[in-house]
């Protein structure tokens, strides 16, 4: 008798989409915010741009490590 196929493990699938979104959002907000504070302190303007890019990169890294494969 052939073994019945195991149902795929869909645990927490629905939450992953929102988790990815909130990680991206948090990444850009946190590091963009830190960059903006540095801008205020040093009277520059690149901090917020660099901060947002760094935050974006960090968020992507996190998402790949967590939900990749």
């Amino acid at each position, binding site marked *: 008798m052939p073994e019945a196929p195991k149902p795929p493990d*869909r*645990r927490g699938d629905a*939450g992953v989409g929102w988790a990815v979104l909130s990680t991206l959002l948090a990444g850009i907000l*946190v*590091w963009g915010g*830190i960059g903006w504070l540095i801008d205020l302190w040093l009277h520059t303007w690149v901090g917020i741009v660099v901060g947002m890019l760094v*935050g974006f990169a960090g*968020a992507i*890294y*996190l998402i790949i490590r967590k939900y990749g494969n």
Partner: protein
Amino acid sequence: MTIVLADPPCKGDNGFCAPGTDSFMFKPLVEWEWLNIHFQITKITILVWISVVLLIVLLLAAVRNPKIVPERGQWMAESVYGLVRNNIAEDMIGHEGLRFAPYLATLFCFILVTNIWGIIPVAQISPNAHIAYPAFLAIISWLMFNIVGIRKHGAKKYFGDILFMPGVPKVMYILLTPIEFISTLIVRPITLAVRLFANMFAGHLLLLVFTLGTTYLLSVHNFSKIFALPSFLMTILLTFFELFIEILQAYVFVVLTASYLQGALAEEH
């Protein structure tokens, strides 16, 4: 036609009164001061009370005299509970999730009933269109998944795993820890509350725009009168659309709460 208990926002102008945030503020039926806090009983409060009474009465009636072959009321109550228990609690969290089924089902029923007020004639607004209700529900869910996680893993391991993702070079923590902190402990409850609130708020505004548009267009004395019909048809269409959104948002709120609980209980999490 909406029976709006709020003042029309227009003053002095005879043109179309566009609905705004004023459309969400209702005249208090009763108000009092206590400890410098201003209390008001409004239409919103009344709707929440009715929802709670309705749920208690309907659910008690449904299970008061349970039968092996259920009647309609019992069948409906069992379907809703079964959906939340099997398709949300068990499927998403696993066997451990069954003990959260009563909470998740209660949450689902409460949000569903309070949402559906948005399209019930005379009521015509969901209490969840006021941020306070979704915010409080989100706080309960937030407290719950954190407490569940702390009780299972201990505070040190629970927060440690959230803030310092295992298997990452130590230097990366400078970059990643702030992101993890904000996204798990701050963005999660805020998005949970805002998603429900914004959907109900926007839905109410949409319906208002088209109902008020219909009545306004009927009152003008020129060619534009004919546009009252499409505006009215849009109201009907959007009412069905709102019903769909109201059910969907109740479901989404519960699914996300379950997914946060799952995350808090997971071994590596």
